[in-house]
């Protein structure tokens, strides 16, 4: 076993500035018969352990592609992505969880069995994991729904189940691709604030993809602004708003300033892209 693998296995204490995932000069292009789309061009990014990082940008700028790279589902054509200094070679379900826009639950499994599914795959479905699952179900506010089937739940509730399932293996990183994109505005804001509470309680690192500038500012420590054609990282913004945050922070001067700044960035890149 080399040192890097040992580092993977030992629980390393978190400090605010430690890098957990490093994206190093990643380029990813998709070729079709007629054209080539450069989804990511020379993207580099250090994700800090324990932070809440959002990726924003217009449709098609490569957010999902980057997230798939971070999850190990997609191995980049150029450059590499390292988890704790070891290049990712595939999914690492015990360290990195991925939450999709649609909850992707097993319709034939109850809430508790969906949450326990990753432990079943690992042959670790013990009494301990069962009580952990119950804690997580409580954490996402679904106590009492353990034995319901997905079709008996609302969209927001399904997404909560999928978050609980994402946390069952105590991953260090939770990747979320527009997890609240299919929800109405009210549910969406409530779910965002709830996610903040979960993030604070578990200490998990969150990488969060969203179309909504407001959602990104409300939740994040840092925001990576991406621009399309080719997909590039335009700017990394530190959000210096006090925590804990609530919905009132939206009216603060700093919030308004950040919102305008990000919007200007995106508008500029759009007109730049049309030349």
């Amino acid at each position, binding site marked *: 076993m080399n040192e890097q693998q040992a580092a993977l296995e030992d629980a390393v204490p978190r400090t605010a500035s430690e890098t957990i995932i490093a994206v190093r000069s990643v380029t990813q292009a998709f070729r079709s018969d007629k054209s080539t789309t450069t989804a990511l061009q020379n993207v580099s990014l250090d994700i800090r352990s324990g932070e809440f990082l959002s990726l924003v940008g217009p449709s098609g700028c490569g957010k999902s592609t980057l997230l798939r790279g971070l*999850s*190990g*589902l997609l191995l980049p054509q150029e450059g590499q992505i390292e988890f704790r200094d070891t290049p990712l070679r*595939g*999914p690492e*379900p015990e360290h990195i969880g*991925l939450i*999709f826009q*649609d909850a*992707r639950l*097993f*319709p*034939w*499994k109850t809430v508790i069995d969906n949450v326990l*599914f*990753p432990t*079943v*795959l690992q042959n670790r479905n013990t009494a301990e994991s069962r009580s952990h699952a119950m804690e997580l179900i409580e954490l996402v506010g679904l106590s009492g729904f353990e034995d319901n*089937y997905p*079709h*008996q739940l609302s969209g927001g509730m399904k997404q909560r189940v999928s978050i609980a399932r994402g946390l069952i293996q105590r991953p260090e990183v939770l990747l979320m691709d527009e997890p609240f994109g299919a929800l109405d505005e009210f549910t969406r804001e409530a779910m965002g604030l709830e996610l903040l509470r979960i993030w604070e309680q578990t200490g998990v690192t969150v990488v969060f993809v969203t179309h909504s500038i407001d959602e990104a500012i409300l939740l994040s420590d840092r925001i990576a602004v991406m621009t399309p054609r080719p997909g590039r990282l335009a700017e990394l913004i530190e959000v210096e708003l006090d925590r804990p945050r609530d919905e009132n922070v939206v009216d603060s001067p700093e919030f308004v300033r950040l919102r305008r700044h990000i919007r200007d960035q995106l508008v500029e890149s759009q007109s730049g892209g049309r030349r």
Partner: protein
Amino acid sequence: MAFEAPPVPRRHGGTVTTLVSRIGWILIPLALWEVIPRTGVVSSSTLPPFSDVTAAAMRILGDPESYEHISTTLTEVLIAFVIVVPLAVISGYLIGLNSYVRSILEPIVSFFVGVPKSIFLPLLILALGLGFTQKVAFGVLQAVFIVTVTMIAGMREIPDGLQEYTRTQRASRWQDFWHLYRPAVTPVVVEGVRLGMIYTMTGVLLAEMYASRRGLGQLIAAHGTRFDIESLLAVVLIVAVISIIINVALAAYGRRVGRWRTG
């Protein structure tokens, strides 16, 4: 809100009224079957009344010699069935797994569903002779294509995105089969198996009627040639009751494993 929620569609079945009307729809034809021959509109030698046929069926069931026929038929059906289900489920799984393979083989399998299998009966007799093997083979032939087609269709029932999800969990091929494909297709396959059962039964009975020494099909044919309509109808009644029982049991099982689809 300006929009009203659409009315929830009412599910039929389960209420007392539907149960009563169902029983009614079964009882009315039986009552007509009883009354019409007795009034003499149709002579009772052409159509013996229901009660006479039931009595004859009881007599046949009481006769030890009949058990040989019944057990012959049921054994043939059962063996054919035990061959059909794994054969169809495995080939359907392999065909449905890959979209390229499916695009080539699915139309071919569907084509065989449409071919009347009875035209192969003389061929089977030439190849296998008269007897157990030939009956079972014909039962398999009748059902295997239709069950394979339902299995292929069932493979499309797998909810979008779940394959990608299990990939993020590093599920093995076997785990994918067990946790994803198997539960997703089970309700559809049970429905296909229910259909397949009817076809297998048809196949075995047909083969027995065509040429055989034993079995319920042979019994029906024998009574027919002797113009013993009462006994003939009695055997038909027995066969109908047996297949209804099997059918209802499979349908109930299908509803149980498919509960997650509707609730």
